[in-house]
């Protein structure tokens, strides 16, 4: 394929702005949608607090500590959803044959799907996550923020969003191969963020391993949160016996490798794509 003569990042920005503008034409609907996502997420969080109203800790984690995991997971996922929704919404396009049109346009397929649906309304989930993180630093007693805390948090949220984004890409690749697989993929995207909202050390060994080595959810928030909270992890949960700080700092590398794998899988799925005949 010949190189396109447009600069893709600026094209992406133009398309994303067009999306947001289009949404803003129905301003009330758009704001209601942000509010709706925010409220739905808030109540899910409140449900967690209701449980903590009954017990002081879950497996040694306090409400504030779980709130930190929750908030980081939600913030990362919100960013990933905003940028990765094109891959998530692929299944109906494959079924209807609409996806075939993407293949004949003179732009990389990955870029077209990536740029097809920027979702600004996901900010509702992001804000709720940010509130949960704020709660975790203020309850029961305020914990002061250090510069290093901000660095770890920012790194972790961006890294986490790359990991979730790559999972959406893998989901898209799956949709190209298996037409009816949408709900199956939800297990790994929405299920992933739910799993990451709780302390990983609560879960059984196979799940922990899978969340470290296969779908690296542990790098989204668990290792960074251990570093932020200065918690000691149970035996055998930290790969190679590395410290949480080292793991938190190496998370970007893990995320990029995972994204690289996802892109390769995606490209191969596009090459092998056969369509549905509709």
């Amino acid at each position: 394929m010949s190189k396109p003569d447009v600069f893709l990042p600026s094209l992406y920005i133009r398309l994303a702005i067009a999306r947001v503008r289009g949404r803003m034409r129905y301003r009330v609907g758009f704001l209601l949608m942000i509010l709706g996502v925010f409220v739905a997420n808030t109540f899910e969080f409140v449900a967690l607090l209701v449980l903590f109203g009954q017990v002081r800790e879950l497996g040694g984690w306090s409400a504030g500590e779980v709130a930190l995991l929750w908030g980081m997971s939600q913030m990362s996922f919100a960013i990933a959803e905003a940028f990765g929704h094109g891959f998530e919404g692929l299944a109906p396009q494959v079924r209807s044959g609409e996806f075939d049109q993407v293949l004949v346009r003179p732009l990389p397929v990955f870029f077209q799907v990536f740029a097809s649906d920027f979702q600004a309304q996901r900010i509702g989930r992001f804000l709720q996550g940010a509130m949960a993180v704020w709660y975790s630093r203020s309850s029961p007693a305020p914990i002061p923020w250090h510069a290093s805390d901000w660095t770890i948090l920012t790194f972790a949220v961006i890294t986490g969003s790359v990991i979730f984004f790559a999972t959406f890409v893998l989901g898209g690749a799956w949709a190209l191969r298996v037409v009816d697989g949408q709900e199956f993929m939800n297990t790994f995207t929405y299920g992933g963020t739910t799993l990451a909202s709780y302390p990983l050390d609560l879960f059984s060994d196979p799940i922990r391993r899978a969340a470290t080595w296969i779908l690296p959810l542990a790098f989204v928030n668990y290792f960074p949160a251990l570093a932020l909270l200065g918690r000691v992890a149970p035996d055998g949960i930290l790969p190679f016996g590395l410290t949480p700080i080292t793991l938190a700092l190496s998370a970007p590398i893990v995320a990029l490798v995972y994204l690289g794998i996802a892109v390769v899988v995606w490209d191969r799925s596009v090459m092998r794509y056969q369509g549905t005949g509709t």
Partner: protein
Amino acid sequence: MRVYAELARRAWQRQRAYGNANLAGLFTNSFFGYIRVVPLIAAFASRPDISGYDRDAAITWNWLVQSLITIVALWGWWEVALTIRSGEVAIDLARPIHYLGYWLARDVGRAAYSTVYRFIPILIVGQLVSGLRWPEAPWLTWPAFLCSLVLAVLTSFAWRFLLNLGAFWLTDYRAIASLGLVATTFLSGFLVPLAFFPPVIRSILEALPFAAIIQTPATVFLERAEGMDLTLLLAQQLGWAIVMLGVAHWGAQFAMRRVTVQGG
């Protein structure tokens, strides 16, 4: 009556056409059931009893609510809204059958399918993964539970139908959808058992119709209401089903008059 039975049968068959999606959904529900049961079990490490739920009851509640998701279409159901948007509603209204009954019959068929192909498999998964607390008085509890399940479907149908009618006034139903989701997940006892809430909030939530969608069938299955309490609980649920269906019927008539005014 035969036409409604036929509609229900067709709805059942339509679900069967999505066999693969059902399998994937089963996988998703099972996975979420596992993710959510783990912290719940951890909560019972520090105390044996939370508001009358012991560990086994809480585990069973967890798998039970997962298995109810598709039966009461917890994540939403927008078929009516879609026909309003596309204008197909005019054809539905022209049919010589009761409009609400038409949709109710279809929903009952859909729910019956989910009961066989989702509810039962999820309970089996729950039993295999974490072990469930099965009714100690099966001859009483299972029939009571089935009644409660039917009433839950009726109440949830009426509620979903009313949300769908919102599409007559708002072009985008997705905002209504996320707020409706709060009602059916948080207020219904799906995210945490209503018994875990502080007493005042708990009694308010137990009085609302949303409890009839999830919490009541779960309470019946867990045998947390017996004798007179059980009768009263089912009577309350029946009351909500009738009231909600009544409101849905009235809402439909009101909305349909609006369609006529608009000229279709």
